């Protein structure tokens, strides 16, 4: 096998539920060791895509290979190489955390150490608690522990941090980065774009069953979508300008005004901004009805749709 080995390859996959097309010819590849974030709004086809790769659903047409095996016909040996963290489930949980993790460990040929895994997901002090007595976020950690206990080569994480508090999410990220360092290939779906940006090497954005764009985290959406935005206020009200040379613009502004421009900010569009503009354009999403009270729209400004830019740098 030649490096980089391809762990997941999807070619023109379609999925039809009756007349509804959930996936309309999706293609992508994930090499070994990559963390790939599959992003998209609810109902876009993310879950269908993931479940086809996990072997839970059959595709209508197209080709798919997961660890070299057609996921529609994956046997037990194949499953032993996967780790699957499903979206939250409602299992009754009349079993303690340690019992559950140890029990699942027995399914796999080369499981991780149970205690070490419990420690890694931060559940050591709850190891003797029954799962049903845990909080939502703690149950999610059990899900993750069960997903990684078999030392998977490929790990599916379907909205893994829903319901986590910010601190728990940070800890979870560290855990995932550790798995990544061990060489685990990871497919991640999430609604938290900062999570995708933090963990992912590449991302694909899917909407209405189509892959809109795919690329490295810092390139996705194309160069245009990443042009920094400079905002300030002058006598005519709020101003906004997009330029690849924001420092030059600010310097010019400063020279003109002769003083600190009011409300000056330089914004580099975050993954979330890019995502929203892509998905929004595609779905001709809810109109810009949420008008900003103080913003008489400036002509000729290409603005990412109403969103809160998250990476703000003040000059």
């Amino acid at each position, binding site marked *: 096998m030649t490096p980089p080995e391809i762990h997941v390859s999807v070619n023109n996959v379609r999925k039809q539920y009756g007349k509804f097309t959930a996936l309309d010819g999706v293609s992508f590849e994930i090499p070994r060791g990559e963390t790939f974030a599959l992003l998209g709004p609810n109902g876009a086809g993310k879950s269908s895509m993931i479940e086809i790769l996990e072997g839970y659903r059959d595709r209508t047409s197209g080709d798919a290979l997961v660890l070299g095996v057609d996921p529609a016909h994956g046997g037990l040996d194949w499953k032993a190489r996967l780790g699957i963290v499903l979206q939250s489930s409602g299992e*009754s949980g009349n079993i303690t955390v340690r019992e559950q993790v140890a029990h699942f460990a027995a399914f796999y040929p080369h499981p991780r150490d149970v205690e070490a895994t419990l420690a890694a997901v931060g559940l050591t002090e709850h190891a003797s608690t029954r799962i049903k007595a845990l909080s939502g976020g703690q149950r999610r950690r059990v899900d993750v522990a069960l997903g990684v206990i078999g030392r998977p080569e490929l790990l599916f994480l379907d909205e893994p941090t829903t319901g986590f508090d910010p601190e728990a999410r940070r800890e979870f990220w560290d855990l995932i980065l550790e798995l990544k360092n061990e060489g685990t290939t990871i497919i991640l779906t999430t609604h938290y774009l900062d999570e995708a940006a933090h963990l992912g090497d590449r991302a694909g954005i899917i909407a209405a069953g189509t892959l809109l764009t795919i690329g490295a985290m810092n390139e996705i959406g194309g160069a245009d979508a990443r042009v920094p935005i400079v905002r300030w206020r002058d006598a005519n009200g709020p101003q906004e300008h997009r330029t690849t040379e924001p420092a030059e613009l600010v310097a010019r502004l400063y020279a003109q005004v002769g003083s600190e421009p009011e409300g000056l900010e330089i914004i580099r569009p975050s993954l979330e901004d890019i995502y929203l503009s892509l998905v929004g354009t595609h779905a001709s999403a809810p109109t810009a009805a949420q008008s900003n009270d103080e913003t008489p729209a400036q002509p000729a400004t290409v603005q990412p749709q109403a969103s809160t830019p998250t990476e703000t740098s003040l000059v």
Partner: protein
Amino acid sequence: MNALALGLKRAGYENRVYFRHGDTLFFTFLFPVVMLTIFSVAFSSSGNVGTNPDGTGGITQAAYYLPGMIAAGILLSGVQNLAVDIAMERGDGTLKRLSGTPLPVLSYFLGKFGQVFVTSILQMLLLLAVARVAFGVELPTDLGRWATFAWVYLLGIMTSAVLGIALSRIPRSGKSATAVIIPIVLILQFISGVYLRFQGLPEWLQTVASFFPLKWMAQGMRAVFLPENFEAVETDGTWGLPAVALALGIWLVVGVIAARYTFRWIRKDS
């Protein structure tokens, strides 16, 4: 670890979970004991059953109801327990999670059988103990009768277990599982000679009941626990044990085939 060893591990796990689950513990495990107690106490004023004109040969209400409750216990521990349990596991995501792991289906089944076997043996012991200690029922002393008990029980519990797996496909969701399964099991108990005297039912209803396994389990258990003078009131004046073996055997085969071909970890594409 091979499928067999994993099956044993599953059985331990399943049993642990079973006894931590209040609902099943009451409606499946303790139910026959509770019913035996209620019937024995409620009808105690009616005196003994099957007393000869000379005042001999009668047995207490508890002794009379014991075989039926034992048969019901077998049905509940197999059919009701597994059908509801597996339908709920399919509904709440347990099966989906398991099917994403390298756990063989065979091991999963072995685990369920192990759970059914252990819980139903304990249930039998509890029923017999309550009958003996609380209601003074005289248990058979004859080895031949206990041999009959052994094969009727084994055939009955295996049949019930595989039928439970097959029936688990019927409820559309985990929440509807008890609502769908319990009526089936309850009706069978009423028409198969558990709560009502079988020979007292209209003939057509007896015929209907004969198509289902519970009637045969109850009949087999009457042969074990009732005195000989009760044999005369059975159909054709005999316990009909060969027919019991044949009927349960056929249901076992049907159940194995149905379980084998209908079981799915998840409802794909629902």
